[in-house]
């Protein structure tokens, strides 16, 4: 365990300093994007709503100890039990519920496909987001659009935290599936199809990225997937 003490000049006690003008506060929403914990592998006979495995449940329990979740005022997930379950310990330990939302769900993939066919569909999903990559699949651009619209709709309920001496972004935690997560990041950050597919292939279960969404400015990737110990 490491303790870092940075220099502190900001007043931490006593009279509040004057002069924080709320009109000047940047309107930024921070999204802690969580790819769900380990779920039962897809396959023939496996239910569509794949539950977390015992390992996945343990992973979800570990996530609740992350300081990263402390500033969150909302926990949201796609409707699948694996995404809700990934955030459940972290939300409940902070006195909050996970709010399931259909628009935050994983991209439809038309049921189980053999590995080679799945890989081909996935490559098309990221390389050509404007087309439906396989029967029953959602296109990458449609997925990114509906996911992004829902995230944007969360902004009003999670304004920046403003106190007497500083403002920090409003923070929400969103758990979803890997494909839509990467499709949305690629759309928001201007990734190429190859970069997006590569990012998807490196994803872990669970995995975490942090992205800041300033209103009327370009999105900023703060912590990429694969960085934090999960």
């Amino acid at each position: 365990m490491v303790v870092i003490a940075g220099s502190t000049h900001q007043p931490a006690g006593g009279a509040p300093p004057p002069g924080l003008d709320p009109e000047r506060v940047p309107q930024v929403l921070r999204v802690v994007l969580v790819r769900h914990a380990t779920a039962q592998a897809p396959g023939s006979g496996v239910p569509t709503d794949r539950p977390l495995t015992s390992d996945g449940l343990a992973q979800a329990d570990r996530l609740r100890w992350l300081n990263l979740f402390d500033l969150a005022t909302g926990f949201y997930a796609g409707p699948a039990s694996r995404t809700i379950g990934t955030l459940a310990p972290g939300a409940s330990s902070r006195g909050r519920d996970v709010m399931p939302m259909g628009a935050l769900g994983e991209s439809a993939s038309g049921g189980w496909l053999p590995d080679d066919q799945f890989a081909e569909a996935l490559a098309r999903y990221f390389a050509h987001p404007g087309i439906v990559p396989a029967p029953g699949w959602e296109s990458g651009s449609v997925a990114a659009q509906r996911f992004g619209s829902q995230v944007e709709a969360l902004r009003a309920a999670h304004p920046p935290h403003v106190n007497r001496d500083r403002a920090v972004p409003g923070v929400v935690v969103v758990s979803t599936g890997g494909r839509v997560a990467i499709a949305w990041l690629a759309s928001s950050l201007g990734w190429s199809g190859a970069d997006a597919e590569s990012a998807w292939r490196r994803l872990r279960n669970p995995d975490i990225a942090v992205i800041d969404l300033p209103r009327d400015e370009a999105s900023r990737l703060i912590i990429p997937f694969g960085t934090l110990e999960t």
Partner: protein
Amino acid sequence: MAENSSPLQSQPDAKGEFFRLVAEQGHYGGRTFPTPTRQGLYVCTPGGTTLGALNTRDAGPLLEMLRTALERWDHLAVHATTGAPGEYDRFRPDHYPHGGLVLRAIARDLPREVDTRTDDWRKIAWNLDYAWFTREEASSLVPDPSHPGATSEASPELARRLGRFHLRDFVRGEPAPWPADAVREASLSSMVTGVSGDRITVSLHGRIRLEAEFRWVRQGDGESHASPCSFDATLSGEAEWDRVAGRFVRFDLAASGPRAGTQQYNNRPDDLGPAPMAVVFELAGDTLRDRTPPHTVLHAQYFGEPA
């Protein structure tokens, strides 16, 4: 470990990246307003998972945070990185003055006849910094030949750095260095008071007088502010030089006198003075903690003004 967070917020090397990873999971994650500071206290795993963070001077909340972090560590340690860190290609050079004079500087207010300070942390505030001088600069304080009564004048560079960068009012916070033209007077002289074997004892005397108006725009509301600041410091102390080692083995120097004014980040707007303040200097050790760089070491003129 103690770090100056300001440079780390943008420093393009592994150390900066690690700090930013930890800080972005903490209390100021995403902060851009009124400043992008990430100052504070952080507890993290060696792999960069933040376990606790806050910015406070109060022991109670800090203790609570440390306890929370320890509980989190108990749950996450087994999954934390255990590998050795990789090579560190440092972005900034190491200016530690090996063989030179490394001083610990402590600043605090002195008792006042009429005390109008608010009865909270501001009344008992003190702060710590370090001051670095090269061996050559330090030796300028040793008269040659060294017989009792012999005197010497500190090098202009030593006096300049002492004044501009170390006689700041950092009791409550983080003032900027004095500008070059703020130094109205700067003298520090020594006199041999005793010689015993290889040890030379010198008394230290001097005066450094600083005056400047500091101006800033408060980012929170865009308002301009200005404050005339000053510190009229009388220097007094004693030091012992080891002729064989070629270094000071004891160094005690006090700079005391009236200070006035405030700056943007030194938390003095309610205490403009004049009021008495002291900065005392003593020899630092050579532990890692005592190698903490001076707060202003990254200033372009810390080690000298351009010719």
